[in-house]
């Protein structure tokens, strides 16, 4: 059994246990728990990062910029300004005297040099403490340079990663509504919450194009400022990664009356449902027919490819620990499609409804955890005899150290896992990890073998 901190006991649940289901979540991480979460800044940075023609400058000491330089596999079809790292690199004197002048000068020189369509200024912890008026500096530079310069209030200590999502959405909201929308079709959407990791937005965009639905903007995968400015013209917001983007979707609904639906592009079932939901929303017969034929075509192509993987993977056990819980739903289903069983699932930022839904989805005995940490995760992996762990970079060494397969489903991934073809990639990656002969040499598998011999 895992050694769980007293303060965290109510953040771990085993389906089927006696107690009524109640999982504490959306709490500040317990001090000393070695949470896998980052901070408010991280939340903002990951959401806005893929906007490729904007300048992203981190106002603070160098660390926050260093650790987020070229961190995501968010691809761009054009400019790649987002892959550079800019920081005011505040020094001791800037802390004493305030960093506004330095920020002003940094913004001016960088805008002159790179001619971005907009600039995002990320406030880090100490900016909130020394009281720099980042908003005023942004306003001034915006006036002088004639582009939107948007403060992102992402001081690390001011909440959790989710508050960072909100700060990013607030910055985006300032852009939406400032572009022309005359040529926007009534059959149009914004793709919210896909970040074009390994080109996933392109895959999804292509499905919508084939359906005859216009994509006004992608927020923020392969993102462009001018597209985001036109986002209010879309007839529907299609929200993936609801943890980060629901705030924006709700705000757009309040302000512009744009309805939104939640979707997921992972796994065949969820992918198909996403397209059908969009088609259904428009109630257009032709769109629906085209959607049906896309889904049929893609399934016909995909299913035979998956069958082979399924044969090998049936009965294997998986654990999932991801940032947002919504992704976990799709992963449980996708793994089930491959014949695999999810024995542990958790997220950094899930909410009550998310966990309730997860509980319904999962088998008896499955462990559900909110805001977990390496010690808990490692005991879960050991106890449940997991074959493959699905998570991000920080989870990878936990699995590998124990001789357990791993699949990166986080923002650093280099394989597209969304869409129909993404499901095949996912299956191939899980298969490639689970079936590798290297595990036979690890103490975990060897000790099992020895026991059998005895």
């Amino acid at each position, binding site marked *: 059994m895992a050694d769980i901190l007293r303060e965290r006991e109510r953040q771990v649940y085993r389906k089927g246990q006696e107690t009524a289901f109640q999982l504490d979540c959306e709490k500040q991480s317990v*001090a*000393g728990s070695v949470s896998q979460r980052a901070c408010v800044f991280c939340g903002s940075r990951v959401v806005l990062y893929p906007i490729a023609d904007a300048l992203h400058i981190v106002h603070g000491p*160098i660390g926050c910029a260093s650790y987020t330089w070229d961190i995501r596999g968010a691809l761009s079809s054009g400019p790649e300004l987002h892959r550079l790292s800019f920081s005011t690199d505040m020094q001791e004197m800037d802390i004493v005297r305030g960093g506004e002048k330095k920020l002003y000068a*940094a913004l001016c020189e960088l805008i002159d040099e790179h001619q971005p369509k907009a600039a995002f200024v990320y406030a880090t912890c100490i900016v909130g403490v020394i009281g720099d008026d980042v908003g005023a500096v942004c306003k001034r530079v915006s006036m002088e340079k004639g582009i939107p310069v948007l403060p992102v209030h992402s001081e690390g200590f001011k909440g959790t990663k989710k508050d960072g999502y909100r700060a990013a959405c607030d910055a985006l909201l300032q852009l939406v509504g400032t572009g022309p929308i005359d040529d926007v079709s009534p059959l149009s959407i914004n793709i919210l919450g896909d970040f074009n990791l390994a080109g996933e937005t392109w895959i999804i965009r292509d499905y919508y194009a084939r359906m005859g639905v216009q994509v006004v903007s992608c927020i923020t995968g392969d993102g462009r400022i001018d597209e985001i400015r036109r986002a209010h013209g879309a007839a529907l917001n299609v929200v993936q990664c609801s943890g980060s983007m629901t705030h924006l979707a709700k705000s757009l609904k309040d302000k512009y009356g744009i309805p939104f639906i939640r979707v997921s592009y992972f796994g065949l079932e969820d992918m198909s449902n996403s397209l059908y939901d969009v088609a259904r929303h428009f109630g257009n017969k032709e769109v629906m027919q085209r959607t049906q034929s896309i889904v049929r075509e893609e399934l016909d192509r995909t299913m035979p490819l998956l069958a082979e993987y399924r044969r090998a993977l049936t009965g294997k056990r998986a654990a999932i620990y991801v940032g947002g819980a919504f992704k976990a739903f799709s992963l449980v289903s996708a793994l089930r499609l491959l014949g695999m069983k999810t024995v542990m699932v958790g997220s950094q930022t899930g909410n009550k409804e998310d966990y309730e839904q997860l509980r319904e989805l999962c088998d008896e005995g499955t462990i559900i955890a909110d805001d977990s940490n390496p010690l808990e995760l490692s005991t879960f992996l050991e106890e449940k005899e997991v074959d493959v762990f699905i998570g991000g970079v920080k989870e990878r060494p936990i699995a590998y150290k124990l001789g357990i397969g791993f699949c990166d489903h986080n923002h650093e991934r280099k394989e597209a896992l969304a869409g129909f073809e993404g499901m095949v990639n996912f299956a191939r990656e899980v298969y490639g990890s689970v079936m590798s002969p290297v595990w036979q040499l690890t103490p975990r598998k060897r000790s099992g073998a020895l026991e059998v011999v005895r």
Partner: protein
Amino acid sequence: MSSPVRITMSAPKPNWVSTRNPCKACAPLGAALVMRGIEGAIPFLHGSQGCATYMRRYLISHFREPMDIASSGFSEASTIFGGGANLHQGLENVTSQYHPGLIGIATTCLTETIGEDVHGMLHEYREKNAGLNHPELVHVSTPSYSGTHIDGFNNAVRSVVEQLAEAFAGADPYAGNFVNLFPGMVSTEDLRFLKEVAADFGIPITLFPDYSETLDGPSMLKYEKIPGGGTPIAALRATPSAGASIEFGRTLRTKNTAASFLQDKFAVPAKRIGLPIGIHESDAFYATMEELTRKPTPVKYNQERGRLVDAYVDGHKYLFGKRAIVFGDEDMVVGLASFLAEIGVVPVLCGSGGKSGALARSIEEVTSHASHCNGQIAVREGIDFMTIAEETALNEFKPDFLIGSSKGAKLARALGVPLIRVGFPIHDRIGGQRILHLGYRGAQRLFDLVVNTLLEVKQDSSSIGYSYL
């Protein structure tokens, strides 16, 4: 002979206010790494949760090992009212979960800026837990707005030694029988190599930090809460009893270090030598070992040296006059410059994000023997990668290759030349933590790598494709 360190023309815009593609990380990262090199210890950052998580991720991507760093997880309330409660709760939770022998606490920009009295808080914590078996607590001040990860590393080494060092009251059974070795931020393979050298010289050493096992361990059946290995706490207490301290790093001359502290307070002689990369700097290391142990260098190392010189001769034609841009942590850059200069390469630009104030002088010292470099080396402290790119264009450095951390990969790609990955961090290759840089053996590997990289370029760009080179 004129100085080999030339003053280059200024870059197009020398006064960039911003840092663009940094060649450094922040101070607490270095401190966390040091704490990972103490036996039974867990690093703890006093600040926002994100700091710990980001640094874990950065270190994990290099070492490819679990790297647990605890955090006091600052909230808005702790920022306003102080983080004492968070620190105490964090220490308690880390203790109950990990059962560490030591918790190494480093501050962050946030806690430094709001003026947290960590010393006082820890005093209070110790009082509260008096009589209980709580772990040793050490702390280091690492404001991220001051210096780089290397400063955080060196400050942590000094702080830990300062806080744990105990003088023997009576007769000291260890007196003079061993040596403290403070290697600086080197690879796990470098650390293992240094232990091997000391063992071969027959002298016990206190190598600090020592993350050779904690961050490069074997595959496990059970998850180790705190991986085995690391400098024993008892050994850290006994540092004042050493016969001498050896400290690697020419640029440390401007700093208060662990070795200088032990010399000043406990009269432990400090030997500061360059990071032993290449023959000249390795000779100085073995000479120091000979001097301290009064023993000759074991035959095996002389054989390594002999083979290395033989290899230098075999490869010299492919290298002479080749131009390299060197970047990374200051002392790594100094060591690499020394090595490159002795094999006939010109390190045309030696740059670091660090600002010790001693980089130019150190480079000058280690390249003065190489007349082919005369007046051709530019040295830049506090540089970032976009400035390196601009200076490279403006000064027509025309490098044949880059050598340094993987953060230079973009630049190498833009320049169309190979990057030889050494030092820290290496985020885009496997095995960065296992690169051996030090000693004749390390130089042999670096040498083969450099020559073969250039041969590969030559072969790939040849229309003939020679079978013999």
